[in-house]
């Protein structure tokens, strides 16, 4: 029953945008007048009684670069699942700006409205070239009809070149994405997000498995992206977090344990007890 009603919900939403306002992108309805981009309030997600998120509150400002840390299973990926529409929380609210209710929208609608996501495991379109990956991700009409008759415009081509430059894959543009190195795939995936012109980038463990040089490049990349858009980075690598973050949020057992600058976090007795103490001794 609930699946059925959801089905119709999606259908209705789609019709609204396409039938009544074909030219207006739904992004234009986003209201950022209060300076806050993302509001998560009181979000609870449980799996068979186990609470992966427990009354989570999280606010992300416009243009902010936020790092989220937390032990394995703290609920970081689950939080991203909620924001991107993959999971519906049991309770709570999620808004983009003042007006856009994320909990009513499907994954594709949320992406359209300007939230891009990098998966924990790098996921690119393995069968296609780097260029094609970006072409298919361009912020453009996503309908079947548009895809059947699509031709790249000069402007779009320039945009692809621009993103290739930003992610440092200009010389790799013709390579098949499946043959890229692990680090290059991570960058390509960030490019896939970037070329959609999102307001918010959610980046799950971008430097896992990267060399020191690659990690440094990624830090530069992510820092350069913030400002114009908001970036939320989930990472375990403390050095990396220290090098990019202004404000760090510590998640623990599905809710926020502490929030502040890296130094504040490290001095926080609660954090010392449950998180930093254990990672520092292990690494």
């Amino acid at each position, binding site marked *: 029953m609930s699946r059925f009603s959801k*089905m119709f919900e999606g259908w209705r939403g*789609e019709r609204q945008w396409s039938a009544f306002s074909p030219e207006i992108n739904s992004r234009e309805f986003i209201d950022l007048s209060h300076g806050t981009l993302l509001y998560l309030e009181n979000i609870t997600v449980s799996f068979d009684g186990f609470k992966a998120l427990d009354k989570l509150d999280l606010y992300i400002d416009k243009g902010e670069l936020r790092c989220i840390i937390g032990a394995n299973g703290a609920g970081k990926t689950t939080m991203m699942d909620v924001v*991107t529409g993959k999971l519906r929380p049991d309770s709570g609210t999620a808004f983009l700006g003042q007006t856009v209710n994320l909990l009513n929208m499907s994954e594709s609608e949320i992406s*359209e409205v300007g939230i891009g996501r990098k998966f924990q495991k790098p996921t690119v*379109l393995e069968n296609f070239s780097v260029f094609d990956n970006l072409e298919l991700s361009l912020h453009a009409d996503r*309908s079947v009809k548009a*895809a059947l008759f699509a031709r790249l415009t000069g402007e779009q081509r320039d945009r692809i070149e621009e993103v290739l430059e930003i992610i440092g894959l200009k010389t790799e543009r013709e390579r098949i994405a499946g043959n890229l190195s692990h680090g290059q795939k991570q960058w390509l995936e960030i490019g896939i997000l970037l070329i959609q012109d999102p307001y918010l980038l959610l980046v799950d463990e971008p430097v896992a498995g990267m060399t020191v040089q690659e990690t440094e490049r990624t830090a530069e990349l992510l820092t350069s992206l913030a400002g114009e858009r908001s970036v939320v980075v989930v990472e375990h690598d403390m050095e990396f977090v220290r090098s990019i973050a202004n404000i760090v949020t510590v998640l623990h057992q599905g809710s926020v344990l502490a929030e502040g600058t890296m130094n504040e976090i490290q001095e926080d007795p609660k954090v010392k007890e449950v998180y930093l103490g254990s990672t520092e001794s292990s690494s």
Partner: protein
Amino acid sequence: MQSKSFIIETLQGDTGGRILIAVLLASCLIFPVFNLFVPESSVFHISTYLVTLFGKYLCFALLALALDLAWGYCGILSLGHGAFFALGGYGMGMYLMRQIGDRGVYGDPLLPDFMVFLNWTELPWYWNGFNNFGFAMLMAAFVPGLLAFVFGWLAFRSRVTGVYLSIILQALTYALMLAFFRNEMGFGGNNGLTDFKDIVGFNLQSDVTRAVLFVITGLILIFVYLFCRHIVKSKFGRVVVSIRDAESRMRFIGYKVENYKTSVFVLSALIAGIAGALYVPFVGIINPGEFAPLNSIEIVIWVAIGGRSTLYGAVLGAILVNYAKTRFTAVLPEVWLFALGGLFIFVTLFLPKGLVGFFSDVKEKMRKKA
């Protein structure tokens, strides 16, 4: 001029496709000429039996092409394509049935024999219009397309995938088979539709009609091949392949995956319906047996053996397997299913990319050595 450059552009980098189209064009010439103009006494004579047989294979090839579009490119492992094929076949069958007119056993000018036999006094409403060839052909494609649309709309929106989808489609074709077996359905029950006389005024039994049907089927296969190739090369095709390989990535990029899957599925069902409609004049009968779940599985095997996601592999697989089937069932009919099953397992284990994949791997190795 323009259509020529379109064909060249479409076939760019598709060596297999070019060979296939050359062979098909040659067959469209050779089969009718050697059938109609070479005397029967000559060794070069091609019998009408062979024309009919290979005409059937071309229909199967079209069906395999349809499945490859859905399965090979979009990852929809449909075990129900036999149903779309059979529905298209019934569309043609209904037209041919009405062409019989008063030449049936009972001589009723309007009602087909089986209806007279059931003591029906008037034509069921859904038989109206089927005396018109254009309308009947439209329905032969439209009805499978509509069924695919309704099914796809429900299944893909509820995110039914993988083995569940395959099983539901098997159930669908099985249910249709049972329904078409029933006399009250008005499709001739278990005898189906048969005893056809002529098609658009030409005697179905004549050699010339058979030869023309063969050529038309061959040309349609070429046209559909080019169409499918064009589709898979477009941005739409690349989106579809990406959905097959990384569905959730595509959702998060913002594609409405269900719309793309439904489109491919409907397109595939339309082609399967056309294949079914072309098939019936060759075999002269359509009955509920065409809905048998096993038929749908066989289509998957043709495509797997030929090689998935190449389009020409599907055509090759359909023709080779069916030729083998004809040969085999003539000698050892009871062994055929075991042979087919064994072949399928062999191909899955040792030739995961099918025959065409195997050949291109061999070619690649030779090139490396040289």
